[in-house]
């Protein structure tokens, strides 16, 4: 079953159309990467799912319930981490989680137990200071803790790693991966290596629509053209190869990279065999989300 279902969402700001018929389905217990460039409409889509932005058209369902603008009941299924989470600076992490828990109507004992559990999950268990002095990474971690407090069915994170250094990013990704045991994670990003590291599913947002959507393995198999690298034992055959295969690109003096379908690869192999060209390595590059994204974005 899909935990989040978006049908034909449209939204314009002034005369700028941000979303032009976006449809998206997030399967339960997935880590769903919502990928798009800056300004593609990722945040708008997520805010619409939370009822914070009213779409011009289309429908959104969370756990089968329709999302309404403003005061919406569907938010009880969702834990949300905005791109730059802001907390009350005069509170400590524990006080903040207590406020969240009480707002959610959780019992005292439950709040206490869950707070400790989550604070140690995100590595803030020993933190006694007020939020005022927190670094960005600490705020992101507290953000994840507050989002998971009520055991939501869906965790929505808006670019959780974009503003962080490599270590902070890795920590957040590990926490999200750990959170997968408890919930479905939807996170937006433009950092493809992050998506590749932890996602089970992904969707590419381009031109206000979903250009591609599916599990990571499905997406990679859609990637029709394959990239090969050929390393030669010497540079003397490079000009011949490059003139015979105009699509190949020289990488240094003794190697070339080659994009193409099966026929072209076979033609290349035949050429190497015929001319008895010595080589040290032929390698098929693993298809990456990045290559796929470039392809989608180029269309």
């Amino acid at each position, binding site marked *: 079953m899909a935990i989040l279902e978006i049908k034909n969402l449209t939204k314009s700001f002034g005369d700028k159309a941000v979303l032009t018929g976006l449809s998206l389905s997030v399967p339960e217990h997935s880590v769903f990467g919502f990928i798009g460039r800056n300004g593609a409409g990722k945040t708008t889509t997520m805010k619409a799912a*939370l009822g*914070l*932005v*009213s779409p011009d058209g289309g429908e959104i369902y969370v756990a089968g319930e329709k999302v309404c*603008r*403003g*005061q919406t*009941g569907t*938010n*009880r299924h*969702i834990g*949300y981490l*905005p791109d*730059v*989470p*802001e*907390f*009350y600076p*005069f*509170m400590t992490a524990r*006080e903040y989680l*207590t*406020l*969240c828990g*009480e*707002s*959610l*109507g959780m019992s005292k004992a439950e709040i206490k137990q869950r707070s400790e559990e989550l604070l140690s999950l995100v590595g803030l268990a020993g933190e006694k200071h007020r939020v005022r002095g927190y670094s960005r990474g600490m705020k992101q971690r507290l*953000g994840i803790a*507050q989002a998971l*407090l*009520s055991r939501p069915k869906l965790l929505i994170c808006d670019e959780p790693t974009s503003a962080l250094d490599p270590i902070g990013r890795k920590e957040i990704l590990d926490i999200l991966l750990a959170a997968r045991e408890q919930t479905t994670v939807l996170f937006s990003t433009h950092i493809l290596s992050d998506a590749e590291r932890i996602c089970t599913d992904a969707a590419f947002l381009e031109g206000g629509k979903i250009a591609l959507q599916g599990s990571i393995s499905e997406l990679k198999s859609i990637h029709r053209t394959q990239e090969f690298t050929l390393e030669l034992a010497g540079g003397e055959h490079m000009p011949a190869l490059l003139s015979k295969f105009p699509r190949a690109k020289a990488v240094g003096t003794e190697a070339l990279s080659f994009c193409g379908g099966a026929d072209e690869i076979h033609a290349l192999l035949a050429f190497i065999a015929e001319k008895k060209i010595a080589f040290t390595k032929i390698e098929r590059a693993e298809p990456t989300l990045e290559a796929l994204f470039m392809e989608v974005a180029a269309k």
Partner: protein
Amino acid sequence: MRSFFAFFKKELLESARSGKLMILGVLFIAFGIMNPAIAKLTPWMLEIMAEELAESGMSITSVTVDALTSWTQFFKNIPMALIAFVLIYGGIFTREYESGTLLLMLTKGLARYKVLLAKALLLLSLWSLGYFICFGITYAYNAYFWDNSVAKSLIPAVLNWWLFGLWVICLAVLFSTLAKGSSIVLLGTGAGALGAYLLSLLPKLKPYSPASLMESAGLLTGAESADAYVKALIVTVLLCFTFIAVSIPIFNKKEI
């Protein structure tokens, strides 16, 4: 109900830790002491200035001050306390819109009307508390130095002004749901109070205007009875409820 009190507690904690509660306390206590102090010091100040005044042709015979002088000071000073109160707390909603702190609370399913009512309750109770502390201090000093009984209809006059303060705060709450920044809230509230004041200048409308509740001189001297303000009281209470009732649906639909 629990989530309402949780949020109310947060508001109280914020007021305490940000130092606003202390500022308010100092403010209202200072005003409370100032009223009788100014009354007490008036003859002494006039005596000092007597020579100068005599040179310019004014002669001062004898000045008698009593509790009435002090109560007149009270009603002269309390508008400043109200203005200070609105300035201090004018951003109680808009600061949260600007910083985005409300976003996380609302996306947790905290009902918006509870946020609004918790903030409104905090404002109304802090105003009431501060106002009556100020009143209590002035009352105690006046009783010690003079005799409070010279001020006729003191309690109605004090309650009228307190209610006017509540009305201004409800107006500020309404503007807080309409505006994005605190300057608009302050401008709107000021304009609303000014409008009520202008209406009270028209003899026909005067008995209905909340601003007429600010007038205490008639009550204190006994020239007017409390009955003269019943219509204004009813209008003011109705407006308070209307402001809050209207702000709830506006706040529910607000883009935060």
